[in-house]
């Protein structure tokens, strides 16, 4: 059923229309159904099924704006909250940064329908593959850890300018970490349907990585050429989007990309696009203001910083089209569906074979900015770190890197042909493996 057809949505909009003519408002109705099975030591030890609805309401009188979030389905509670917002608007000072809500755009529909994941099918799949998966891992004298989950979610938005939009999406994810003592291997698959998951590939990859990792040696910290698997590249891209590609932080000169428009910031072989329509991307095709998020934006073209993403407020400020990148809260527009590509790609195996001496990274852990304006980030390697010597992988202990992530991606030797989707907040990234000339590893993790 469409969210807008629900009794709560109908009654809420009717109440606002009847009682708040002359006011500006924006209402978002959210719906989420999710189930997660978590496993550790080859047992499903935790699980969580949740069916949630919530409503976000913003009311504005001139530049006096107040917001509320409600997860109640009781219309009387919703009306009480709207009345309380009215009281807040009458008390509150003007917010000079408020610039109204978006007008309805010419095009709303992405032309794409997202499939819905069926709970029964999810349970059947769980019962069919977990026993053989756990048995396979036990037979290798190892233990399986990870999660299997799906989420169906949707949002309907209405505002006082007549914009009304609704979109739904779904994803299924399987993550496998195989471990023995302190050696581990990891892989993941995320897709729109259960059928599209690559469960066998993930099990094989995580198992193989773990088996290869026994008896890791220690290497000296320093600069090394680095082969980054798609998951590791995605970890870097997520951080780049969060600390550097947000239009608000660029505008407020808090970003590495501030005042660098049309400047070379990455290797000339790399293109980065915000593309919710990419076939592997998970997207709702609209943003948190209900504005369509259906047009790709070329952010980095041949390594040159070309464009930013916009919500209604920043589109007005920069006289640019709204790209549908409004997010909840005050963080401003941030790209959520990044796709990293290159005109020329190579088989990942061939990329590794050309490395004389370098580091192979499966994924990173606990990345945090050290100095966002300098692009300085620190993180640790995890679940499969190897020394590449003459194209051969030898297990090594995990490492910490501290480096400028723009510099790391400014020296690309080769780009892989193994692009893969990795989910994150409000979307995800599609990225291949990368072979980079150098990355600064500052610490070796102890025993």
């Amino acid at each position, binding site marked *: 059923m469409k969210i807008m057809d629900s009794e709560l949505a109908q009654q809420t909009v009717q109440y606002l229309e009847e009682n708040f003519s002359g006011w500006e408002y924006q209402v978002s109705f959210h719906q989420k159904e999710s189930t*997660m099975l978590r496993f550790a030591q080859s047992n499903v030890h935790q699980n969580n*099924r949740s069916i949630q609805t919530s409503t976000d309401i913003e009311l504005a009188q001139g530049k006096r704006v*107040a*917001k509320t979030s*409600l997860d109640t389905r*009781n219309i009387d509670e919703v009306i009480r909250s709207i009345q309380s917002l009215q009281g807040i608007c009458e008390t509150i000072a003007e917010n000079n940064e408020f610039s109204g809500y978006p007008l309805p755009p010419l095009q709303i529909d992405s032309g794409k329908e997202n499939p819905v994941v069926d709970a029964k099918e999810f349970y059947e799949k769980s019962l069919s593959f977990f026993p053989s998966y756990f048995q396979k891992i036990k037979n290798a004298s190892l233990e399986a850890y990870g*999660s299997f989950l799906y989420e169906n979610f949707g949002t309907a938005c209405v505002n006082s300018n007549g914009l009304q939009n609704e979109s739904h999406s779904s994803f299924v994810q399987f993550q496998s970490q195989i471990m023995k003592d302190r050696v581990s291997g990891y892989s993941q698959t995320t897709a729109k349907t259960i059928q599209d998951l690559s469960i066998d590939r993930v099990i094989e990859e995580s198992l193989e990585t773990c088996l290869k990792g026994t008896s890791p040696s220690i290497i000296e910290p320093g600069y090394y050429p680095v082969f980054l698997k798609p998951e590791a590249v995605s970890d870097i891209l997520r951080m780049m989007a969060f600390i550097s590609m947000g239009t608000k932080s660029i505008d407020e000169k808090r970003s590495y990309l501030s005042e660098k428009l049309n400047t070379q910031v990455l290797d000339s072989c790399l293109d980065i696009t915000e593309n919710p329509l990419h076939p592997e991307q998970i997207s709702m095709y609209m943003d948190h203001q209900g504005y369509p998020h259906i047009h790709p934006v070329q952010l980095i073209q041949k390594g040159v910083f070309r464009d930013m993403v916009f919500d209604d407020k920043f589109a007005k400020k920069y006289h640019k089209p709204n790209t549908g990148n409004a997010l909840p809260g005050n963080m401003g527009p941030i790209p959520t569906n990044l796709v990293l590509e290159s005109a020329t790609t190579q088989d990942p195996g061939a990329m590794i074979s050309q490395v004389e001496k370098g580091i192979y990274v499966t994924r990173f*852990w606990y*990345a945090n900015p050290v100095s966002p304006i300098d692009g300085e980030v620190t993180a640790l390697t995890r679940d499969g770190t190897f020394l590449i010597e003459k194209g051969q992988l030898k297990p090594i202990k995990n490492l910490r890197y501290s480096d400028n992530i723009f510099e790391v991606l400014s020296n690309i030797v080769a780009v892989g042909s193994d692009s893969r989707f990795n989910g994150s907040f409000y979307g995800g990234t599609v990225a291949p493996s990368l072979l980079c000339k150098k990355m600064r590893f500052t610490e070796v993790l102890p025993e």
Partner: protein
Amino acid sequence: MKNKLISYIELAKSYHVQYADIRFEEIHSHDLRVRNESVDSSRTSVQIGYGIRVLKNGSWGFASTNDTHWKSIEEAIRQAVQLAEIAAQVSSQNIQLAVIPVVDDCVQSVAVIDPFRVSLQEKIEYLKEASSAMKIPSIFLREASMSFRKLHRFFLSTEGSFIEQTRHESGCGITAFARNEKGEMQSRSYPNAFGGDYSTFGYEFVQKTDLTGHALQCAQEAVALANAPLCPSGTKDIIIMGNQMALQIHESIGHPAELDRVMGSEAAYAGTSYMTQDKVRIAQLASTIVDITADATVPGAFGFFAYDDEGVKAQKVYLIKNGLLEGYLNSRETAFKTGERPMGAMRADGYWNYPLIRMTSINLLPGNQTLEQMIRDIDDGLLFDGIKSWSIDDRRMNFQFGSQYGRVIRKGRLEEVVKNPTYMGESPSFWNACDAIGDESQYHIYGVPNCGKGEPGQMMKLSHGTSPARFRNQKVGVIQ
């Protein structure tokens, strides 16, 4: 409410479960932020719903709903049972719970002034005044914020425990952003970064925090940072001030002391722990002057509560005693496995999530040194103040932390300001290098509103009591 919960628990029992509990929660919150004396956002929220946890055939199942009609709750109970049955079919575990006393209790909030009864106008004026007091040259952005929550929780288990708890949460803070002539930016916060400080007191906590009284110093330090040289690199003696010590305790003692991590059930996401069970009362994980407790019994602390989400009464236990690993944060499930007593650390961030082992108030007990004494005994050192950046490995061994504000210590004196100060180390050797802890007069319990753990991700509220402390021969300044 009790009768409703009894009927739900009776329904759960009809599915032949070994154990079940149900939580009903109603949470009201209000977040208010002022930027450059203008109200940036005023956001309220209401969350109401049920979370049902069942143990059947040796496996857990959990489901939640915010639809409070009988049919939806009935369906949630059925789904929790179904998940437990699926988990049992594919697993070989046999989860059992340590025995706890059955209780029937009602516990009220310790707030004196209900923040939800303070007028919006008064709150805005308070923040605008603090923001305005940061208005000095080079400060281009001034932020002041406060946030409040009011929780009403009910808990009922198949064992017969019924608990009703109310709790208030109050927090506030300011941040000044300065830019130098080259356009480089630095920020400084009071009383801490990430929204300030938090407690389970009422609005009186905000009044006591006195944002305006500290605003000018906060702004001046931001300007000093914007014009300061970079933190030097090398090996130095360091002093870590209280708000940064809270992070140090959190990441390198609190998380590794969670017994679910130690036993491997969080390995895939949050990771494991260096505090393995073979180290209990044997391994010297810190110097002998270090005593650290998990104490949920201090009224007003952000990690204060009466009962956890398994109905276990809040307690004070030692995690580190005389530098030795003394015990863990546990749950009924992990306590059964170790044969220990449950200490009351199983908490969920809301009715929509199952409880996990979480920190309560993890406190480094005060020592006997004044700050001046600690500085006086340093020939070549650095002082770190205010949380800026943190990263630690999945066993909680190797860390790199950054502070907002650094000061060089030279021959026993505090000297110039340095920006982007960072230090790094390995948890046990770092804590073994602790040779001085500040006295009781410097002790403060810092509220942490955003501790992430678990899948789906949960944000827990907790706290850390600490004074400043000194650590000898630490690596500093990695980024240069």
